[in-house]
């Protein structure tokens, strides 16, 4: 098991290095001069040649490719992601200030998905081809087909404008969280339901379920203990890939609901060509993704005693 983790860690570092290099490469050869864009944004005027020159010098934007690249890597090793061209604040601080909001949204959506998707998937699997199963299948297919940004707007229209129950913008109270959370959760819930159903159906046909029945255990115990414990193993790996979906969804949902997280900040930075922020974001997203997948691996090992055993020997 330790070998597996070390292997994972090494590949994680490797992924991060490649990700940062690629993001750097992309931005270096990007068309358009960021200095020009930023100055124009800040002053509202077309910048003069001298102004641009000064801006580039101040932000080391006129050094050769390799120098800039090494500089970026050097700063990275010291935990510095550079300074936002827009706000003048260190990128890392900009992120830490906003990460809480995104984390809140993502965790809430994930929790909601698991709370709803898991039991429904299990029920659908215990009654395959029943009316309930068919309805769930249609609903989940619709769930993965609805674009998040549109769903968010429709929910706003319904629950804020028409019914006036919930606020549509802003952040702070639980009431503000509801709509963005639901929007983000719908797609994940739908795919989770489907994975759980498929996985449960497979497990419920195995020999050891027959053994459990022969032992005279209650159906509840058979389904929720004997079957689910095994069915969850593949589902957990799926959750890892869902994190990518979650991050991408957060970018869109935060933009729609003006949720002050890193996703919205990222999109704003793209509009503004705030290169250090874009680079930093790519790196941080890669880091989160890698970290979560590492956690998933650990959880997997915990859930599946067979892997645990092989790792030990």
């Amino acid at each position, binding site marked *: 098991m330790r070998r597996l983790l070390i292997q994972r860690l090494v590949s994680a570092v490797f992924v991060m290095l490649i990700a940062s290099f690629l993001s750097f490469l992309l931005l270096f050869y990007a068309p358009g001069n960021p200095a020009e864009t930023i100055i124009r944004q800040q002053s509202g005027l077309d910048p003069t040649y001298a102004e641009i020159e000064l801006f580039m010098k101040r932000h080391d934007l006129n050094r050769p490719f390799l120098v800039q690249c090494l500089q970026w890597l050097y700063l990275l090793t010291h935990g510095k992601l550079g300074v936002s061209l827009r706000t003048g604040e260190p990128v890392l601080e900009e992120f830490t200030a906003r990460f809480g909001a995104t984390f809140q949204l993502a965790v809430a959506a994930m929790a909601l998905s698991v709370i709803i998707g898991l039991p429904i998937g299990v029920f659908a699997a215990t009654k395959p081809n029943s009316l309930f199963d068919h309805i769930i299948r249609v609903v989940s297919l619709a769930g993965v087909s609805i674009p998040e940004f549109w769903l968010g707007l429709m929910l706003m229209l319904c629950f804020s404008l028409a019914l006036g129950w919930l606020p549509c913008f802003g952040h702070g109270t639980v009431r503000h969280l509801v709509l963005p959370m639901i929007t983000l959760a719908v797609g994940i819930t739908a795919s989770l339901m489907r994975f759980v159903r498929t996985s449960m159906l497979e497990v419920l046909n195995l020999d050891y379920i027959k*053994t459990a029945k022969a032992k005279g*255990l209650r159906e509840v115990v058979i389904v929720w203990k004997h079957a689910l414990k095994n069915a969850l193993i593949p589902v957990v790996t799926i959750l890892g890939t869902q994190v990518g979906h979650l991050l991408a969804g957060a970018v869109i949902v935060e933009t729609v609901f003006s949720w002050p997280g890193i996703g919205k900040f990222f999109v704003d930075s793209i509009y503004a060509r705030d290169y250090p922020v874009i680079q930093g974001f790519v790196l941080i997203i890669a880091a989160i993704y890698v970290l979560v997948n590492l956690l998933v691996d650990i959880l997997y090992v915990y859930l599946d005693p067979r892997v645990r055993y092989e790792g030990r020997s």
Partner: protein
Amino acid sequence: MLLKITNLRVYFKSADGFVKAADGVDLELYPGEILGLVGETGSGKTVLGLAITRLLPKTAAVSGEVLYRGQNLLALPEEEMRKVRGRQVSMIFQNPLSSLNPALSIGEQIAEVLREHQGLKRKAAWQRAGELLELTGIPAKWIRSYPHELSGGMRQRAMIAIGLACAPSLLIADEPTRGLDVTIQVQIVELLHAVTKGVSPPRSMLLITHDLGVAAALTDRLAVMYAGKIVEYGRTGEVFRNPRHPYTRALLDSHPSNGLIATKGFSPSLINLPPGCSFHPRCKKARKKCAHEPPLVQRIGMDHGVRCFYA
């Protein structure tokens, strides 16, 4: 009488017609007795075992009567049946690797039966689980291990420990020795003997097997199954010494100790059974009548019956 099966039929609906896995089976099992059910793969032995405990898939149509202590199990409400399973009638399946839950420790798999049926608390149940492991020859320190960590023989011992947990009066063992090394097979046979004949009062067992050696070593009586029907039954020694049905004779002849003489042909598909006696296409003694008229069981002496016109 502990178990009396009368006219049991199990049909599966399939795209090509009904699969008659059991077609009018009668069996009797007395307290403390070990009854062997032998026959080739696909003769319906396993289905019979599952029909008794009502563990067949919902697609199976079951009719007839399974009287356990005078109570028809087939008519019992599901919740009542659940309380019979594991407490009064336990099953031991073949292939313990796939029959044990890979995600639960063997201790848990034993203890949960005790908690369910005997209302033991967690600690007491684990305590008893350890004793059951010891009883079946697994050191109690293995209690926290998972099925894949055990050897094949150990897994089957754990299966037996689960089956014994609530001291049931009837064990149904389905091919308990299949897939094990010969030396391990001997150990499992000895263990099964110890937990049935070696307890007081002796426990009954229905032993489903294709292995005549195992059947000879363990059983008091024998029932031979062919194509969903019992074709011969009798005391084990009597059947081995004096097999009367041509199929029983062929089965005995095919055993390595008797020179491995193969029977011509294959066992029939349970969908399209030949008319008359199901065995007649393969039977050396078959005559005209066998192809038209299904034979009934003839009693040929004390507790010995055979389903053949010319026995």
